[in-house]
């Protein structure tokens, strides 16, 4: 068993959430970006992206959205801000994660910074996804302590579930991520709200009809911790 303080457990959990937030939102952005290339659809595409993620549409236009959403340090919803938060949580965990694992978070952060002036965004941001994939692989390979991995993955799957629900992923994907989340949740020793987990289970078990209780599901997920 690892030796993990309350503060470190918090950092582990949020590292998982932020790393996943960067990964999934960037991956989704690529799809919306592709839609934006067809000019007629551009405004609709970015506005619906904002709506699905509950991001206030404070952007002037599509160009403003693309730049600020990806790279603004002052926009708390931007990919870059989320990557910085992931880094802030990771950097205090070197002894848990190992320098090798931590280095992939640093690389992902550097990759975003390098891409800021890119004319080929998807192409130049792809390394961010690659670095995050490598981070997860390195975590599994290098971090011996299972408890540490469970906490960080609990954060990861909670975040993924939240985003998949918001972004309209197919039911099968949501169910799969929910099961992964539950698997990790039962293994960690952080207190959580069992009644909210039960409520979420009930909704997920509705199958494709889960969407009829979409808001309730998001709220339950939000209230688990």
């Amino acid at each position, binding site marked *: 068993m690892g*030796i993990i303080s309350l503060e470190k457990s918090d950092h582990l959990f949020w590292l998982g959430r932020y790393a996943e937030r960067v990964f999934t939102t960037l991956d989704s952005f690529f799809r919306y970006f592709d839609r934006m290339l067809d000019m007629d659809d551009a405004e609709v595409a970015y506005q619906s992206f904002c709506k699905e993620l509950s991001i206030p549409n404070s952007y002037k236009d599509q160009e403003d959205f693309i730049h600020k959403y990806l790279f603004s340090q002052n926009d708390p919803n931007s990919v870059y801000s989320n990557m910085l938060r992931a880094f802030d949580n990771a950097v205090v965990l070197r*002894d848990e994660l190992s320098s090798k694992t931590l280095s992939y978070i640093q690389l992902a952060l550097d990759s975003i910074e390098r891409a800021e002036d890119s004319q080929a965004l998807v192409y130049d941001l792809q390394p961010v996804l690659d670095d995050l994939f490598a981070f997860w692989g390195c975590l599994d390979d290098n971090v011996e302590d299972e408890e540490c991995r469970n906490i960080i993955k609990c954060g990861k799957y909670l975040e993924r579930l939240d985003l998949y629900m918001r972004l309209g992923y197919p039911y099968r994907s949501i169910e799969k991520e929910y099961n992964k989340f539950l698997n990790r949740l039962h293994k960690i020793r952080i207190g959580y709200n069992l009644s909210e987990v039960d409520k979420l289970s009930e909704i997920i078990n509705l199958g494709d009809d889960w969407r009829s209780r979409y808001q309730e599901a998001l709220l339950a997920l939000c209230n688990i911790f």
Partner: protein
Amino acid sequence: MYITNKVKALRFIPGVFFCIANASLHDAESSREEVYSMLSIYKRGCGRSMRELVEHMEGINRLMARYGVKFGIYKHNEFHEQLFPFDPLARVITAAEFAFLERGLTQRVKALNCFLADIYGEKKIVKDGVIPEDFIFSSKGYLPQCEGIKPPKNIFSHIAGIDLVQAKDREWYILEDNLRIPSGASYPMIARELTRQASPRTFTANHIVDNRNYAAMLKEVMDAVNTGGINVVLTPGRYNAAFFEHSYLAERSGAILAMPQDLFVEDNRLYYRQYHGRQLQVGTVYRRISDEYLDPLCFEPDSLIGVPGIMDVYRSGNVALVNAPGNGVADDKGVYYFVPHMVKYYLGEEAILKNAPTYLAFYEKDRNFILEHLERLVVKDVSEAGGYGVVFGSELTKEKLEDLKKVICREPRRFIAQEVIDFIDLDIVEGDTAVPRKADLRAFVLTGDTTRVWASGLTRFSRNPDSFVVNSSQGGGFKDTWVLSR
């Protein structure tokens, strides 16, 4: 910013020649032929290998960035983190020369440990008139709260960082002792790790002692004084200038990196609080928090980064603190003057390593000398550290010299003056050539069951051609330090 210029033509490295040549000065058994032979090996082997390292400089710096080899600095009350500039041309110390340094450094740290035990105990050295009491009790580093405390195994200085320079006469001089929380060992450690990856042939072609054992040495020290429980590295937090080092040493030594809020005192024991509520007893704290902030119940009451009650636990012998609080009295710049006297007093030996020629403004005779020769001396404020409070008389205007003289006369205990040692330059890579820069060496001496000198060290250099100040906080960079095994 990455360094992108590859070196095309590199001049040879005079600093390395000096180090090798110096071996003959200290080791009578080292014959001239052996020295020439080493030099020849160097020219044929190390030189080529160094060039290979230089060619990989861009890659090495990229790896440094990847692994977050940074230090923090506060400017205008804002925290900035920056990469510690690394130069691939290592300082090379021969086996014979290292053996000499090892003897001198071990002797010095043993004497300093005896001094600390004495000062917080019987104070014989004061009673016997070897050191005036003014230098002890007026020192900011002397902590009356530590009176009578006997730390585990009576070790005060577990990790000493001793700063040395090599003068152009090839003599090594001690510039200062750092016995509180000396930092810097992690940088040559990780530099070696990365340079071995970047240029493996350099390390197969030369007999260089592996320096990556520092973490194991640190663990041995922590284990040796452990009173029962886990080892922790106590950091003030992410925004400390040396946070990279704290986290890296914790990782490598297997200790737990603890924030102040992770530790608490109960029943006169120190515990680490786990997230699920259980607690673990702590046996050794390698604390990277200054004395004055360590325990708000004992020192600075407003400290938010201390552990309330930790000093009581330490006083009761229920936890080891590495280094011992109160060590600042021994690395006071005024007390530095007396270290050779300590060696004689406690060990009955002559000091192997020399101090830089130093004058104490406290003594009238010395003060008069300082006032007469101020323009050629370097004056140090004993209460400052990190390269601050250092003034070169040669750089002052007539008016400023007069002002300084007045301050020295008003507060003589506050200042020491030293002859400016024209220490050797080491070459660093700048653009596509190599340029000479002033460099010092921080040697690390660890004391647990035995006192050992780490076969490496932090070589810091000034990036400013006109400066002797090598501190990272003042813009300096660092090199690896190679100790040859034969």
